[in-house]
């Protein structure tokens, strides 16, 4: 038997699935419960997976629906202290190395859920716009506009406005930040 079993194929998707869950929940322990639930569901609905379609997109669909139906409320209550996100690990992002993974997670958690999930589907699960659109039940144009908003907001929450940026013309997020703080 040379063909990968269904289980083997799922194992190959685990890094993406778990990363997506961690980011969505903002907590390792909650994410692991979520992944476990999603795997059991996936297995019991294995018949609904259409061969030759993207298994990762199918798994993300199950995980995402499980999250919104029974985890989202909990994720707002849980504060993990024993996980990587809580540690001050610098992001390897060049000059922005002062930022930590926890900073990025905090900024992500401030996004509207419908913006955050799109960003994670594209950025972490590496799904296509088409797949993200289908999972969320929206048009591709909506996926693109949510992605733009998510990026703009994330940059704003991360405070990606260096003094050299402010010397030049104010950017959209710059203005947005000022508007929010009541300066305009």
């Amino acid at each position, binding site marked *: 038997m040379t063909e990968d*079993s*269904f*289980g083997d194929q*799922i*194992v190959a998707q*685990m*890094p*993406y699935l*778990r*990363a997506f869950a*961690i*980011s969505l929940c903002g907590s390792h322990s909650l994410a*692991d419960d979520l*992944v*476990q639930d999603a*795997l*059991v569901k996936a*297995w019991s609905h294995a018949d609904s997976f259409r061969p030759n379609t993207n298994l990762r997109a199918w798994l993300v669909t199950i995980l995402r629906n499980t999250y919104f139906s029974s985890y989202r409320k909990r994720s707002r209550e849980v504060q993990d202290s024993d996980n*990587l996100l809580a540690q001050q*690990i610098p*992001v*390897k*992002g*060049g*000059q*922005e190395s002062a*930022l930590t*993974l926890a900073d*990025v*997670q905090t900024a992500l958690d401030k996004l509207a859920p419908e913006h955050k999930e799109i960003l994670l589907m594209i*950025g*972490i699960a590496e799904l296509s716009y088409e797949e993200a*659109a*289908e999972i969320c039940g*929206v*048009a*591709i*144009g*909506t996926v693109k*506009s*949510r992605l*733009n*908003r998510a*990026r*703009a*907001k*994330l*940059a704003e929450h*991360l405070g*990606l*406005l260096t003094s050299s*940026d402010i010397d030049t013309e104010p*950017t*959209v*997020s710059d203005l*947005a930040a000022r508007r929010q703080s009541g300066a305009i």
Partner: protein
Amino acid sequence: MSQRENHDNDGPIRDTESDMHSTADGSENEPNGANADGVALDPKIQAQLGRVFQAYCEDLIHQPIPDKFTVLLAKLEAKQREKK
């Protein structure tokens, strides 16, 4: 090349593509300055954000998968084999 698409049969075009969702006009038009936040970021900030977010994603993707998941999947697979 006699095997061209059936353009010659001048029947109504009813290929399977018609069941692809129509996305052209289905976009969400959120009220209140739809473009206010949708405008492309300043390229410098965009690049910074790209690096930071990329690093975050890669870190998460490369985290080791706890053994309990491989154990769980093996159990699920074994259970299914029993059923057969």
